[in-house]
C-alpha cells in the first residue's frame, strides 16, 4: 500500500535504529577458532546426514553432510582440518543437537575446494535448484528456511514477482547493508540464477530509506538486460518480514495460513542471493557468512565474515567485550535469542551477535504491570491481530481459544507488541509458548488418531 507517496505496510513500530556504528565498516574475514562446532541442523527441516567419520581429514569446502530428502540441505567444511568428534552440542534453542567438531589445521593455506560449476547460461531450472540445495543455501535473514524449497514452485501455482529483501529492519544489524555495497555483482548474478530457476518476469529489490548508499550503488550497477527495479521503503519494523514486504511493495496480502506463493510472489534475502551468485559458478557450498558483531559491550564492533561453527566464546574473545557485559544474543534485539551458554556456535541463521551491558538490559526489566487496554499493541501488530486479548488469554493458558478465535498461529513473533507495551507485558514471549503448546497438542492428536 501507499502512504503519502511512500510504499509501506500498515501498523508496525519504530525502534531506535542504532546502525551507524557498524554500517560504514567493510566486512572483514574472521580468524578460525581452535575448534569449530558445526551443527548438522542449521536449517529448518530434516538435519543433514553426516558423510565424514571421526578422525577423518577434510578440506575447506568439502561436503561434511548431505541433505536428507528434499526438505534439507548439505553442510560443508568451514575449514581444512580434522574431524575430532561427531556428537551432541548445545544450540541456541536450548536443545542439544548433533554437530561435527572440526579442528582446523594451524598451518593450512585454507584454500577453498572447487566443486562442479553450475553455469548460469546452460543450466536447466532443475539443475539450478539442485545446485542451490547442494550448496547448502538457506535464508540468511534469520529463518534459515531452505531456499531451494521456495524456488520449486508447485504445479498449478504461478509467481510473477521475485522480491529481493534488502530491508534489514532489525536494529543494530548492518550485514545486508554491507553485502549490498560490497557484493553487487554477486547479487545480480544470484538474481540471474533465481530468474532462470523460476522464470519470473520481474524483480524488485526492497531497501529501507536508512540505506540510501546501498540503493544508489545497486541502481548504478543495474545490468540493462535484467528486469530489476530498486524500491526504497520508509524505515519501519518489521518491514523485513516476508508478508510485510510483499504488502509494502505489491499491495498484496498473504492470506492467513498461506504462503507468498498464494499471492504470486517469492521473497529471497539479499545476502542469500549474493551467496547463490558467489557459490554456484564454483560449485562451492556455504562455509561462512557475514555477521554484525555489535552492542555497547563490544570493543571491536564491525561486520565480519565468520566461518560456520565458530563458538560464541571465541568470537567474543576476538572482538573483545567490556567488563560490563550482561547479556549476549544472536540475531537482532527484536527477534534475536538470548544466549544461555557461550559454547553455542554461529550457524547459517545467525545474522548478528549483540552484547548488552547491564544498563541496556535494565531498560527491559521484567516488572509486569496490568494491561490498561491502551491499544498500542493493536496499532503495532502488522498482522492486525489483537495482542491485548491474546495476552489476557495466554495468562490463563487458554491456548485453544487463542488459536481458534484469535488467529494465534498467524503471529510470526516480530515482537512489535512487546516493544510498545507500556505495561511491559511479555506478550510475544507468551505467544511463543502458546504456539508451542498448540503445535504439541496437534501433534499428539495426530499421533493418537
Amino acid at each position, binding site marked *: 500500500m501507499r502512504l503519502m507517496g511512500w510504499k509501506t505496510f500498515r501498523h508496525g513500530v519504530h525502534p531506535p535504529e542504532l546502525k551507524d556504528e557498524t554500517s560504514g565498516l567493510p566486512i572483514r574475514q574472521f580468524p578460525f577458532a581452535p575448534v569449530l562446532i558445526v551443527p548438522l541442523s542449521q536449517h529448518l527441516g530434516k538435519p543433514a546426514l553426516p558423510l565424514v567419520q571421526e578422525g577423518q581429514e577434510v578440506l575447506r569446502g568439502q561436503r561434511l553432510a548431505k541433505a536428507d530428502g528434499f526438505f534439507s540441505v548439505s553442510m560443508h567444511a568451514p575449514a581444512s582440518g580434522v574431524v575430532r568428534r561427531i556428537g551432541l552440542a548445545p544450540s541456541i534453542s536450548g536443545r542439544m543437537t548433533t554437530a561435527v567438531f572440526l579442528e582446523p589445521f594451524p598451518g593450512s593455506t585454507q584454500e577453498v575446494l572447487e566443486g562442479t560449476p553450475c553455469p548460469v547460461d546452460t543450466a536447466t531450472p532443475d539443475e539450478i535448484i539442485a545446485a542451490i540445495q547442494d550448496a547448502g543455501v538457506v535464508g540468511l535473514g534469520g529463518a534459515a528456511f531452505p531456499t531451494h524449497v521456495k524456488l520449486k514452485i508447485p504445479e498449478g501455482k504461478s509467481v510473477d514477482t521475485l522480491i529481493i529483501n534488502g530491508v534489514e529492519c532489525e536494529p543494530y544489524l548492518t550485514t545486508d547493508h554491507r553485502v549490498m555495497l560490497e557484493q553487487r555483482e554477486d547479487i545480480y548474478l544470484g538474481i540471474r540464477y533465481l530468474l532462470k530457476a523460476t522464470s519470473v518476469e520481474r524483480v524488485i529489490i526492497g531497501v529501507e530509506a536508512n540505506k540510501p548508499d546501498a540503493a544508489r550503488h545497486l541502481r548504478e550497477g543495474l545490468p540493462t538486460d535484467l528486469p530489476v527495479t530498486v524500491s526504497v521503503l520508509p524505515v519501519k519494523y518489521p518491514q523485513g518480514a516476508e508478508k510485510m514486504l510483499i504488502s509494502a511493495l505489491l499491495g498484496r496480502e498473504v492470506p492467513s495460513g498461506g504462503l507468498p506463493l498464494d499471492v504470486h510472489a517469492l521473497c529471497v534475502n539479499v545476502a542469500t542471493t549474493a551467496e547463490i551468485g558467489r557459490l554456484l559458478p564454483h560449485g562451492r557450498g556455504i562455509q561462512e557468512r557475514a555477521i554484525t558483531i555489535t552492542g555497547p559491550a563490544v570493543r571491536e564492533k564491525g561486520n565480519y565474515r565468520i566461518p560456520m561453527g565458530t563458538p560464541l566464546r571465541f568470537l567474543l574473545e576476538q572482538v573483545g567485550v567490556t567488563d560490563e557485559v550482561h547479556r549476549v544474543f544472536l540475531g537482532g534485539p527484536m527477534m534475536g535469542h538470548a544466549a544461555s551458554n557461550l559454547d553455542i556456535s554461529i550457524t547459517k541463521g545467525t545474522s548478528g551477535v549483540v552484547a548488552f551491558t547491564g544498563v541496556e538490559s535494565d531498560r527491559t526489566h521484567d*516488572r509486569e504491570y496490568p494491561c*490498561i487496554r491502551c491499544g498500542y499493541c*493493536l496499532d503495532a501488530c502488522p498482522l492486525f491481530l489483537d495482542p491485548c486479548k491474546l495476552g489476557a488469554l495466554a495468562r490463563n493458558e487458554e491456548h485453544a481459544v487463542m488459536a481458534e478465535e484469535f488467529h494465534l498461529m498467524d503471529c510470526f*513473533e516480530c515482537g512489535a507488541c512487546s516493544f510498545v507495551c*507500556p505495561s511491559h507485558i511479555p506478550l510475544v*514471549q507468551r505467544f511463543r509458548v502458546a504456539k508451542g503448546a498448540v503445535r504439541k497438542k496437534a501433534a499428539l492428536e495426530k499421533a493418537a488418531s
Partner: protein
Amino acid sequence: MRLDFEETRDLWKKFEALRPHFQKGGKFEKLYPLFEAKETFLFVPPHTAKGRVHVRDAMDIKRLMSTVVVALIPCILWGMWNVGYQKLLAQGDPTPLLACLGHGAWHMLPIILVSYLVGGICEVTFAIVRKHEINEGFLVTGMLFPLVCPPTLPLWMVAGGIAFGTIIGKEVFGGTGMNILNPALTARAFVFFAYPAHMSGDAVWSAAGPDAVTGATPLAVAAAAHGPGVVTALGAQGITYRDSFLGLIPGSMGEVSALACLIGALILVGTGVGAWRIMISMIAGGLAGGFLMNASAGATSAGIMHLPPHWHLVLGGFAFGTVYMATDPVSAAATHTGKLIYGFLTGVLAVLIRAVNPAYPEGVMLAILFMNVFAPLIDHFVVQSNVKRRLARV
C-alpha cells in the same frame, strides 16, 4: 522524577538494608507492596528481561500516567485561579492575580490532599491484601476527581467519594486495567447522587460565604431560561462565549476552562497518550447533539434546547470530559473505529442528557459512564465486522 542510580547510591543502600524486613519472613512482610512501590517510584529496579525483544519503547505505564498528570497542570492552575477569582468577585472584592491564586489554593489544595490521601490508603490496603503492586493509576484518579468537584464540597464527602471510586469503581473488579467504569467519574457520580445538595444547584459553585451574591452555572441558567433567547439570557447573567471558553465562569474546580483543556489535549495528543479519535469524535457528537436539540426545540421549550451547538462544547464538563475522562484507555473502546463510535455517541448522549433532563445539567459524566459500559460491546462489533469483511474478501 526517577532518580539517577549513581547520585543516590547512599539512599539506595539505606533502602536495601531495610529490604530483609519486608521480604518473606521479615517483620513487615505484609507491607512489601509499600516497600516495592518506593522502589519503583524512586528507582528503576535492576531486573532484566530474559526472553525475546531485548529493546523496549521508552513509553511505559509510569510515563503514560505522569504525562496525564502533566497535561492536567493547565487545568489545575487555571482552576486554582478561577476558584479564588469567583470567590472574590462574588464578595465584591478586587481580584489581583496572587490573591485569586491564594484563595483558590486555600479551597482546592485540601480537597486534592484528601483525595490523594484517602485514595492512596485504599490503593495500598488493596495492594497489601491482594499482594500485588501499587499502581501509579491512582495518581491520575486522585487528581481527576477533585477537579470535577465544586470548591465547596466538604472534605468528608471528598474522602467518601474517592474511596467509593477507588474501591467500587476499580478494586472490586480486580484493580488497574480491569475496571469497567472510569474510577474518577464513579466517585463523582456517587457524590452527585448521594449528596445532591452539595453537588448541584446554584449555591455550591462559588467558595464565597453564604451572604455573598453567587452566580449560577451557565448550564443552570440555560436550563432555567425559556425559548430561543437563551444566549441573551446568559448574557444577562454576564456570561459570554469568550468567558466560557477561557473559563471565567463558576463551575467545578478544574473544568471551567476549555482553553486549559485544549492545552492539555495538545500535550496528550502530541505525546500519543490521549486518543485523538475519541476527542475529535466526541466534539463532533456534541455538535451533532446540539443541532439535533435545536431542530427539535419548540418555541416554549427550555432554553438549553435552543443553545447553539458550539456553546455546549465550552460549558460544564464537556471539554474536560472529552480530553481527560472519555480518553481513559481502560474504560474506553480500544479499536480505531470503536473509538470513533464511542466518542461520537458519548458526545451526543452528553448533550441529550443535558437538554432533555434539566435535573441533570451535567450530562457529560453520565454520558461517559454510560458509554464506558458499552465500550466492550462496541469493540466486539468492530472486531466482528472486520472478521466478516476479511472473510468476504477471501
